[in-house]
């Protein structure tokens, strides 16, 4: 069992961070007219819904929102001990020419995002793909950078980040966990 080292974001902080991300996305794109939101399953899904809702409230619009399952695009699929469970991709609108805002909870090695980019290009050809994450914890293994970051959290590679969301885990918080072996 890993022990908690610090609570990085609490429920109120999460709300503020999501509000700020929504505003940054709007500012960068000069409004919401060409934006579509795509959350990466699992925890990118509720985050995407919340950010979309925030944008909709500010702009008085209805956004198109979809969800991406990257399982089939993973580079570690063959030879993994645990077969990952697929949760399905659910993008029922045209991506061509859109500004896609891709949303995930934690940016770490960058491999998930690499897989997500491959997955998106199989579905359509967006004008731009932008990346919004709640936490950037560093340690990139691929040349990938987020456009919108909730919080930068310097970590060591053996620590871990736990994102808990109301929808999936019952409460809103982000925890930094000690390494496994820590007494």
């Amino acid at each position, binding site marked *: 069992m890993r022990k908690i080292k610090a609570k990085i974001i609490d429920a109120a902080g999460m709300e503020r961070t999501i509000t700020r991300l929504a505003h940054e996305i709007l500012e960068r794109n000069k409004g919401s007219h060409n934006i579509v939101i795509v959350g990466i399953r699992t925890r990118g899904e509720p985050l995407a819904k919340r950010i979309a809702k925030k944008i909709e409230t500010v702009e008085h619009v209805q956004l198109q929102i979809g969800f991406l*399952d990257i*399982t*089939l*695009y993973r580079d570690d*699929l*063959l030879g*993994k001990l*645990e*077969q990952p*469970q*697929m*949760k*399905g*991709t*659910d993008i029922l609108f045209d991506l061509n020419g859109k500004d896609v805002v891709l949303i995930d909870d934690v940016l770490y090695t960058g491999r998930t995002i690499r897989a997500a980019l*491959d997955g998106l290009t*199989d*579905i*359509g050809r967006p004008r731009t793909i932008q990346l919004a994450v709640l936490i950037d914890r560093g340690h990139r293994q691929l040349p990938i950078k987020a456009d919108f970051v909730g919080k930068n959290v310097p970590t060591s590679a053996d620590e871990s980040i736990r994102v808990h969301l109301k929808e999936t885990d019952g409460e809103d918080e982000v925890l930094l966990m000690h390494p496994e072996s820590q007494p």
Partner: protein
Amino acid sequence: MPLKSKHLLGLDGMPKEDIQLILDTAVSFREVLDRPIKKVPPLQGKTITNMFFESSTRTRLSFELAERRLSADVLSFQSSGSSVSKGETLKDTARNIEAMKIDMVVMRHSAAGAPHYLSSVIESAVINAGDGGHEHPTQALLDMYTLRERVGKLAGLHVCIVGDILHSRVARSNIYGLKTMGVKVSVCGPATLIPRDIEKLGVDVYHHIDDVLPKVDALNILRIQLERDAGRLFPTIREYHNYYGITRQRLEKAGREMVIMHPGPINRDVEISADVADGESSVILQQVLNGVAIRMAVLYLLGTR
């Protein structure tokens, strides 16, 4: 959670969790088939050999398409014009192909048990694409998938399989699979086409189609295999149609909505009338499409295991 089995030889004895996993995984692949680019990369670098020792169009094309859509390399092999006609045994043929470093074998054979034997002599995963009168597991899986997609559930439904149960591997795999998933299964056909003791598989037997129609949620109508000297087992095609053919009048008389399935190829106006085959309750073409998704799911689950 991976599949318990390394091979897919049949649905007899396959645990419920495995069937559930295949059906659920196929939902994701069904979505892939609606995309503009219908190809995904999970089996890149894997080589799959299709060994068809018996003629097949639909199943072979469906498997090939599923393999290619998963980015696998595909080797297809038909027994006519191959070393089999020079007298090579199944074991030697398969081991020679395997020596070329392949990962999976999909096999159709006229002898029941051929894929089971094959799985004992080679290292690769073996998928049964139909063995004699024994099993055709991917067909039954796609039938269950299609039924679940249409009705929304499987457990508690009542399915009747109509026609030539005796020669049908589709019937057998469906009975095993449906029973495991909690579906009530009946079979209906002339006594000459119903195997003796089939009740031991836990199915009800009917000889009059109009007795069972008012009770069922779905029909799986089997093809009358005209090429198999059907006249020996019932007097004429016309008589078969009169007694067992599924027609609009029959369905109206039954007074109940039911899903109409058929594994194809259909004999119009023999086992099924044209208006039923093309009618609103018919899911025959969805079965064909879902077949690709089911085969992608099976290949994916066995190939990344």
